């Protein structure tokens, strides 16, 4: 009597549990080996990368006191009611008021809004023509490639390229944002167009509409709301881009930030950063509210209600 009678009859293709176990062991050893090789490769790559950027812990330790000094400037403290030590908002406000940071924010937002608006027609044209639903296959890649090229060049570099045209001014920044928008927004438009349903297109086609009418009424009509949502999203990003462009001199908040850094006015610099945070997050909140409204097609809560409900939502997500 044998333990496994069935193995005698077809030994060739049936595995015994013992054989299966050793096979599993072998696979496990193989996986382990691959893992070790992978970790070693990662270590080599990271060592090389940190070497390239001159990363050094000794540097961090040596300069730490200097950073602490700067941090004291970044976050000046005072005592409230004579006893409570806290951030000295008065110092920040002094600079915000003196340098007119809020009106500089208006310049920054204007760069973003103006650039986005200038970029929309180009994005619409390139984005629509880049879709396979509108332009036949090989030809649409001409437009996609054009958008890819635009995206390959960062907005900051576009601004540098346009300096001969408009000088180091907010105007040049606006042009750079416009071109950048064509590349990014156009791409989002194209992707959105690939998702549309063919029913309405066929419906419009069947009425005897010509090709351009079919594109507009059958296709673009389906993505209209999504397009508005994407425009707002790009506007959010463009406010950030506008601040970065200020750093190279194109005016607005970013420019003031750079000047204060160059003159080692760290408290003033942090004041500009605080205004930046306020600006970007308020643009983001407004844009997200509008987008939520567009998505849901229902009454979404208003901005104030949204802000008021924030602590509650935070608490809920923490204690879940």
């Amino acid at each position: 009597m044998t333990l496994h009678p069935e193995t005698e009859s077809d030994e060739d293709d049936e595995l015994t549990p013992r054989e299966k176990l050793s096979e599993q062991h072998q696979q496990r050893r193989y996986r382990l080996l691959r893992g070790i090789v992978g970790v070693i490769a990662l270590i080599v790559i990271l060592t090389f990368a940190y070497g390239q950027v001159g990363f050094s812990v000794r540097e961090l330790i040596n300069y730490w006191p200097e950073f602490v000094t700067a941090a004291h400037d970044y976050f000046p403290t005072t005592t409230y009611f004579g006893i409570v030590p806290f951030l000295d908002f008065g110092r920040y406000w002094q600079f915000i008021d003196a340098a007119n940071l809020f009106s500089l924010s208006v310049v920054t937002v204007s760069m973003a809004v103006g650039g986005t608006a200038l970029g929309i027609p180009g994005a619409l044209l390139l984005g629509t023509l880049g879709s396979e639903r509108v332009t036949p296959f090989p030809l649409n890649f001409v437009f996609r490639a054009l958008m890819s090229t635009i995206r390959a060049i960062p907005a900051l570099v576009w601004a540098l390229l346009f300096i001969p045209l408009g000088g180091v001014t907010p105007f040049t920044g606006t042009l750079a944002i416009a071109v950048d928008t064509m590349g990014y927004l156009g791409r989002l438009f194209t992707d959105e167009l690939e998702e549309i349903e063919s029913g309405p297109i066929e419906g419009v086609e069947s009425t005897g509409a010509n090709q351009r009418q079919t594109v507009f009424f059958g296709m673009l009509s389906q993505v209209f709301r999504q397009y508005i949502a994407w425009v707002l999203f790009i506007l959010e990003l463009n406010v950030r881009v506008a601040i970065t462009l200020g750093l190279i001199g194109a005016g607005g908040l970013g420019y003031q930030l750079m000047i204060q850094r160059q003159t080692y006015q760290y408290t003033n610099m942090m004041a500009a950063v605080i205004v930046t945070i306020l600006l970007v997050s308020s643009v983001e909140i407004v844009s997200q509210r509008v987008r939520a409204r567009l998505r849901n097609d229902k009454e979404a809560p208003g901005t104030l209600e949204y802000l008021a409900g924030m602590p509650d939502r935070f608490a809920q997500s923490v204690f879940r």
Partner: protein
Amino acid sequence: MLEVTDLTKHYGDVRALEDVSFTLNDGEFTVLLGQSGAGKSTMLRCLNGLTSPTAGSVALDGATLDNSREDVAMVFQQHNLVEGFSAYTNALTGSLGRHPFLRSVLQLVGRKEKLTALDALGTVGLLDEADQRVATMSGGQQQRVGIARALVQQPDLLLADEPVASLDPGSAETVMHYLKTAANEYDITTLVSLHQVNIAAYFGDRFLGLKDGELIFDGGPEELTPGVVDELYGDVETVALAEETAPDRKTTTDVTEPRLQEVRP
């Protein structure tokens, strides 16, 4: 008058339509019957030019139809409306063939055209809902907007591909009622494909029966006998007016399932 001659459509090896010929007289309300896959949709799509036939020809009042054109209107099963637009704007898209691109985009189409659209919405009983977005309407209302769009085309031929297939019985009857009223009011030759025999028999003036791509029946209400229905639908009990109840079925507990110990002793 619509003349269809030897219409044939093959999709690779599949024969969707085979030598179909018939003539529709002006103002006739004809129902196209047949099972799913019998070739009804293919036929309608060939008639309005959304699909080009392999062989044969379609002529409307002597002129050959070969691509999508304004004087042949189509009502689709899934309404194919632009859901983000209002009922009125959707109805107005029926006039696209009469206007150049920019004028249609800016809705600069003149008072007469706007009245045509509102009139069509009135015909399907949706004048009050004209400004409502199609996405927020019920299935039956959406289908009626589809009919309105077709009417705005001011077509000579109205085609409807399973217009009530995805509606509940009540809405289906309402939509069919409006379709028939509209066809009579505007005096349009109409061809509707349906698979609900009851609805077909109730509304149709004339019937065409397709089976496996071939036209096997062409006649009036008197000739549409239970025998013909059986021939078209392959003797399915619930197709005709159900006179018999379904035989008692076994409940699932009666089915003996193999038990574990029987499988592994």
